[in-house]
């Protein structure tokens, strides 16, 4: 990472083409970027870059939410649940996007307290299910807390397997997109805190140009 003021890139553009970056308070910028992608760059006055990051990261996240939406509710690939039958490791990546993933925590709290999720089940965790043996002697999943299917549809209370069956491959793609978007936001946070990445060759060029300028 660069110092608080950096002047170079590794794209072949000359150093003179790059404006000097005033990172202001890098810790505050990093925190703002962690809460909302691109917010730290807006704070630093790097508006163009902030817009690019905001569009790319939020675009990927929203695309993932749209893919994992359907009859079973909105954005079902993003949720927080930590029970023996469902440990949602993906949420650690998804949560790195900050505020956009925050509804998942509210929905998780509501569902755990026995209340129904709001806003078409947006980012609501699935209800618990267990294996039971049916009349044909086969193993199948059964809901623990849900009522009949009509009631489930109204309250968006579905098990993981109902959601997975309804959304099919889109569920996996939604999980992938939202997780990648969250992890990419970490790059945005680092960029807000430290400026652009400068490689060794660029550092040599900067020293050479600085030495020439001093002469």
């Amino acid at each position, binding site marked *: 990472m660069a110092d608080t003021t950096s002047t170079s890139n590794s794209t072949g553009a000359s150093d003179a083409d790059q404006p000097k970056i005033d990172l202001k308070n890098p810790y505050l910028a990093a925190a703002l970027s962690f809460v909302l992608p691109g917010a730290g760059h807006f704070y630093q006055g790097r508006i163009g870059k902030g817009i*690019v990051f905001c569009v790319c990261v939020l675009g990927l996240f929203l695309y993932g939410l749209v893919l994992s939406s359907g009859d079973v509710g909105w954005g079902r690939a993003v949720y927080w649940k930590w029970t023996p039958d469902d440990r949602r490791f993906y949420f650690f990546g998804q949560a790195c996007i900050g505020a956009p993933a925050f509804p998942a925590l509210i929905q998780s709290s509501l569902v755990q307290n026995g209340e129904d999720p709001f806003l078409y089940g947006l980012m609501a965790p699935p209800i618990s299910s267990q294996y039971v043996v049916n009349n044909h002697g086969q193993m199948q999943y059964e809901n623990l807390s849900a009522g009949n299917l009509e009631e489930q549809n109204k309250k968006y209370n579905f098990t993981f397997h109902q959601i997975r069956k309804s959304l099919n491959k889109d569920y996996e*793609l939604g999980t992938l997109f939202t997780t990648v978007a969250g992890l990419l936001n970490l790059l945005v946070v680092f960029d807000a805190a430290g400026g652009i990445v400068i490689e060794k060759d660029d550092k040599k060029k900067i020293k050479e140009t600085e030495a020439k300028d001093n002469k």
Partner: protein
Amino acid sequence: MDIAYYLHLIPLILGISFIYAGTRCEDVKSIIQQGFRISLSMFMFLFVSLVIFYVCFGC
């Protein structure tokens, strides 16, 4: 997997490329140029990989 599902990789690759390019350049024009260059490389790599897999394994 249905071939149409590979189309979903387009926004994913574009997003990753632009953000990676954003960590290396400061002005928007350079980010866009570098982003498209990286995404083109990734698309070519993906295309060649798919052709090799299709020819060798038929999948």
